[in-house]
């Protein structure tokens, strides 16, 4: 999971969902489920995962934690399998004509898992905690556009924005935390973070560190009450062992990494789903360095890679060359754009145009007496990244560019990319823009110093389009803006857009109603059920 975790709430949610699965086109009703069968209650879903950190939606940044908080907590809105925002704690909402005021009408009769009523005070409390500088959270940036808020009555909540902000709903999909349990408590170290209380589909039962987290069905859930009795997250750190557990039935559900795909697809008791995800992989070039601060060079470095061949080998064919940051299933993607095709000759020509030629005949292109070489960072312990980087080494060698790989653990990698250090030349990572296509934090020039524009990409046209996309409230007009933005990003290659990758998950065949969507396999887990005869775990 080479995602830059912990950005927008929804991104974390989406990424979490991606690791545990994503969606294929919605199955026609009745295709696999005979319509006559009614779901029955019972059984436990055992999920294999790496260890979660802390189960508080405003603090959690890692994939396992956000996957769990997404089940235990609810936001004002949620996302459905068609990537639309739909009611959750908020029954409905409206926007003022000037786009500045959002009013949420909250559902009546919702209770926390401890039985206390949920009100607009909880929503206000959640925003206050996020805004509080004492709270150690990466979410603050998501609410930069928010001016203030107001509790109109226990079931009406109003938010005032500084300027019209089209992506606003995304930030309100974040889980709401209970005021009555966290008021006056240091939220950073609260025991609450290890035994959370939410309003979500499942309630927390127990967390045995490095063993498992167990959730039980929330009988009082305000929408569809889950059919399954419980969900167990079993913590298994080694990927090879995790795959064996999935194949052996020790767990019922897990994401599958590309090297294991073909074998797992042949396991009789598993349904292996593959589907386009929201994720794209890219190579970031540090444009603070003169050699990468040249559109021609970056385009050449994109053209020099045969991405079709790399995808076939490293992702087992479960990836296609990317054209930009917007996922294939997003309305923002401009369908007219074709991915850059493999063209080493043009790559060499562009490098030569930029002054990079092999003048001393040593096989490496050079400029001002210095060969073109760079250190390329990848994530240690990820076999797919390693294959890709080894192949990239060969492709770049063919155009005279020398790539020196360095694989680092996540903490080290991030510390190199982050401000104020920015100590890198190039890196290979994956990311997901989220349900809303706002890419302000990645490619806007103001985000180069402290934000996530790690590569220091600066382009006035891109800046203008990003700002316009944020301001434009009319959907059709907004879509046009993003199609233009996509074209501009493609032409300037702020990063080398590598792949759109498919998510792969394996689910035990006894589970019915599994319809993965681009936002995750668990998005509708409350509808999953197991026929009585096949139930494996009796109720405790």
């Amino acid at each position, binding site marked *: 999971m080479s995602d830059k975790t912990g950005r927008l709430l929804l991104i974390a949610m989406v990424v979490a969902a991606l690791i545990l699965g994503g969606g294929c086109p919605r199955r026609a009703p009745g295709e696999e489920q005979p319509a006559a069968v009614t779901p029955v209650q019972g059984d436990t879903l055992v999920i294999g995962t790496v260890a979660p950190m802390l189960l508080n939606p405003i603090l959690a940044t890692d994939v396992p934690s956000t996957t769990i908080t997404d089940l235990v907590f609810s936001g004002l809105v949620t996302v459905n399998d068609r990537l639309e925002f739909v009611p959750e704690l908020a029954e409905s909402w409206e926007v003022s004509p000037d786009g500045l005021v959002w009013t949420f009408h909250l559902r009546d009769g919702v209770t926390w898992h401890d039985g206390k009523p949920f009100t607009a005070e909880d929503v206000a409390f959640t925003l206050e905690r996020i805004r509080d500088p004492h709270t150690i959270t990466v979410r603050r940036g998501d609410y930069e556009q928010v001016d203030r808020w107001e509790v109109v009555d226990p079931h009406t909540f109003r938010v005032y924005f500084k300027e019209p902000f089209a992506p606003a709903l995304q930030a309100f999909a974040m889980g709401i935390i209970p005021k009555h349990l966290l008021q006056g408590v240091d939220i950073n170290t609260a025991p609450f973070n290890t035994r959370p209380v939410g309003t979500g589909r499942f309630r927390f039962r127990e967390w045995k560190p490095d063993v498992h987290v167990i959730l039980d069905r929330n009988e009082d859930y305000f929408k569809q009450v889950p059919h399954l009795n419980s969900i167990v997250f079993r913590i298994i750190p080694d990927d*090879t062992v995790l795959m064996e557990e999935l194949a052996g039935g020790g767990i019922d559900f897990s994401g599958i990494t590309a090297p294991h795909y073909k074998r797992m697809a042949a396991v009789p008791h598993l349904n292996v789903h593959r589907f386009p995800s929201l994720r794209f992989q890219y190579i970031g070039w540090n444009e603070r360095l003169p050699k990468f601060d040249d559109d021609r060079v970056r385009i050449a470095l994109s053209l020099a890679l045969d991405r079709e*061949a790399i995808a076939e080998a490293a992702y087992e064919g479960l990836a296609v060359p990317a054209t930009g940051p917007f996922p294939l299933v997003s309305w923002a993607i401009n369908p007219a754009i074709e991915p850059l095709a493999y063209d080493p000759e043009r790559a060499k020509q562009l490098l030569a145009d930029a002054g990079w030629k092999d003048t001393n005949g040593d096989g490496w292109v050079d400029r001002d007496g210095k060969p073109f070489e760079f250190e390329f960072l990848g994530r*240690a312990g990820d*076999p797919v990244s390693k294959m890709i980087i*080894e192949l990239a*080494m060969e492709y770049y060698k063919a155009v005279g560019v020398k790539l020196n790989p*360095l*694989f680092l653990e996540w903490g080290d990698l991030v510390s190199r990319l982050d401000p104020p250090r920015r100590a890198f030349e190039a890196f290979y990572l994956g990311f997901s823009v989220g349900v809303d296509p706002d890419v302000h934090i990645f490619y806007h020039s103001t985000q180069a110093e402290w934000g996530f524009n790690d590569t220091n990409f600066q382009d006035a046209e891109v800046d203008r389009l990003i700002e316009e996309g944020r301001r434009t409230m009319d959907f059709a007009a907004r879509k046009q803006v993003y199609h233009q933005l996509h074209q501009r990003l493609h032409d300037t290659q702020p990063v080398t857009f590598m792949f759109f990758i498919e998510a792969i998950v394996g689910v035990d065949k006894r589970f019915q109603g599994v319809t993965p969507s681009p936002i995750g396999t668990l998005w509708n887990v409350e509808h999953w059920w197991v026929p009585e005869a096949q139930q494996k775990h009796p109720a405790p």
Partner: protein
Amino acid sequence: MSNWRRFRRNQRAVAGGLLVLMFVVIAVLAPLLTPYDPVRSNLPRRLEAPGREHVFGTDSLGRDMLSRILEGARISLTIGILAVALSVFIGVVFGALAGYYGKLLDSAIMRFVDLLLAFPTLYLYITLVALVGPNIGVLILIMGGLGWMGVARIVRAEVLKLRTQDYVEAARALGSGDRRIIFRHILPNALAPVIVATTLGIPGMILGESALSFLGLGVMPPYMSWGSLVNDGLPFFRRAWWLPVFPGMAIFLCVLAFNFLGDGLRDALDPRLKS
């Protein structure tokens, strides 16, 4: 019975010695022996089972496993030998100083040894490698720089024993300086245990590097060690068993050979075992 004859009679040790010799020859001549370029991918032929063209099969990028294992021998043995050389050098210097001068210097050095031994080795390796960033030089420095304590103890004990021997006393009486006494008279006589420690230290380093590779901290491409080859192959174990198994066998055989050799040398060189 001479040491050499005793060694020769030990079949296990001789077999180990021959195997070690073979591995060293492979490592030195690897570039001449590899049938294919070990880093050149050949995607249409990825994950090909062992056969006539690729005796050990091909890896996930279609590279010839035999060539990669031969090339891996170079890196694994280089790391093993250089790391041990470094540790033996440090160990001999500290051990001799401690044993010869005794008193405060001895206490200081030996407490330092205790200090370093107080850290679980693998833990210390991963902490340092993770902090400095892995490459072959760093691996050698860290494993060698933290592996000398045993040698220092052995050398110290030998020096303590030899220091009061008559011939050393005689050399001192004849006006030899400390340095000359240590290097000419004492250390040559303490050589046997050092040779044994060296031989038995190399397999430890090779296993250490493979453990680091398993945890993702091994050598970086374009270089490859046996440890990194095994680790790269683990995700493919069920689809292409030859990926992890052949380099795993290489580690096993090489470590076994060094252990047999070292054990045989110990039996042959240990004066206490002379009948």
